[in-house]
Structures are given as structure tokens and as C-alpha cells.
């Protein structure tokens, strides 16, 4: 299923959810040519922000991605407080709601490494390229090797052509 990135960002922004775009979508923002199918965000774990994120997604049928249909999944503040990282499907596409990520930590720890981007008229925070590389390296997954190489090449290209970009 196609992920509606603009609409997902719009509903999060509308509810004033505090989040940082990470993962493949952050790679796209920085110029990656690799396809990604989900929006990965690290969210602030305060009670208020959890309530906002639950409200933002509740209308869009959030459900655990890959789980058999029909499980009693309750999308609520309590569920989010009791968990940390959620890989979800919604009617707008796939979204990963992450309390923390390997090599990066939680929202507060990532905040100094995030920059504001404007996307579809929405201002949101996106992890910087250097930190994105470090988090992918820390994850240590063989499937990420190519993605890391591409992100590092992007960093080099930006340095090489700093006048143009």
C-alpha cells in the first residue's frame, strides 16, 4: 500500500505531536534515491504528547503491522505508555512510532541533532544526515549496509558540491 506521507505529517502536525522524522523518510529528505514504504518517527514520551499521537492516528485504523487480523489491539494512551516502539498500519499507510532508536536514544537526546524542514507547508523536525548515518550504523543490520553507503555518499556529494546544493 502506498504511504500518504503528506497526510500523515498533516495529521501529526494538526494535533501538535512532537516528533522527529528518522529512518528511510529522513534519508529521502536528505536526497536518498532508495524507496521506503513507511514513515518512521521518534516521539516525545510525555503523557501530553502520547495523548496527542493517539488522537492524531485514532481515526485512521491503526493496527499492528504484520499481526493477524482480528487481534484485540486497543489504540489508546495506556497501550502507548505500556509499550515503546510500534510498527503500525493505518488507512494512510505504514508508520513506525518509536520511543527510541539504536545509536540515537529518545526524542530529547535526538533533538539537538534534528533540523526543521518544510514539507507540504508543514514544518517538522528531521534527523540530520550525520546522525542518521550513525543510527543506521548502530543498528548494525546487514540490510542497511547499502543504505549507509548511500547516505555517506550523499554527505560527500554535499561537501564536494557545497556551492550548488
Amino acid at each position: 500500500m502506498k504511504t500518504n506521507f503528506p497526510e500523515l505529517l498533516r495529521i501529526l502536525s494538526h494535533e501538535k505531536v512532537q516528533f522527529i522524522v528518522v529512518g528511510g523518510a529522513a534519508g529521502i529528505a536528505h536526497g536518498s534515491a532508495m524507496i521506503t514504504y513507511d514513515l518512521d518517527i521518534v516521539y516525545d514520551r510525555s503523557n501530553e504528547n502520547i495523548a496527542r499521537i493517539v488522537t492524531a492516528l485514532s481515526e485512521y485504523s491503526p493496527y499492528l503491522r504484520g499481526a493477524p487480523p482480528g487481534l484485540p489491539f486497543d489504540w489508546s494512551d495506556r497501550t502507548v505508555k505500556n509499550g515503546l516502539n510500534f510498527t503500525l498500519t493505518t488507512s494512510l499507510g505504514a508508520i513506525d512510532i518509536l520511543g527510541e532508536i539504536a545509536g540515537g536514544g529518545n526524542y530529547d537526546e535526538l533533538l539537538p541533532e534534528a533540523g526543521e524542514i518544510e514539507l507540504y507547508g508543514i514544518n517538522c523536525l528531521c534527523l540530520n544526515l550525520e546522525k542518521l548515518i550513525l543510527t543506521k550504523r548502530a543498528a548494525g543490520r546487514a540490510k542497511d549496509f547499502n543504505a549507509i553507503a548511500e547516505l555517506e555518499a550523499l554527505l560527500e556529494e554535499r561537501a564536494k558540491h557545497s556551492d550548488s546544493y
Partner: protein
Amino acid sequence: MRRGYNGCVQEIQSLIPLDPVIEAYKKDIDRTLLRENLRLTVEQRFENLMSLQDFVEELRKAGRKLHEDKLS
């Protein structure tokens, strides 16, 4: 004063040490695609991603149809 390319690379390497495995993968990266992407706005990069998602979906549909036609 500008740092120049070598200065930038040194700065990158101080933040992100070289990894020989990643360096090996880097040789196969198509940098022309990256340069094209770097000329686009962030929004245009996401528009391209979503067009690519549509294209992948069409390819999958076509592949499924081909498989079904072979079976029938």
C-alpha cells in the same frame, strides 16, 4: 575562510569514522542519482518517492497477472 572539499571530508571522517565494509558498498552507489536528488526540493524528493511507490504497485499487479495467466 572556506574549508574546501578536503576540509569537509576530514570533518566528516572525524564524525563518522571510515568503515571498510561500507567503503566497499560505496563503490556501487550511483552518484548521478544523488546529484539529481540534491538539486530537488525536499517536497519534490517525496513526490518522486510516492510516484515510485505507485510504479512498484503497478509492477506488482502486472507480475501477479502474468503469474495468474500462466496458471490458467
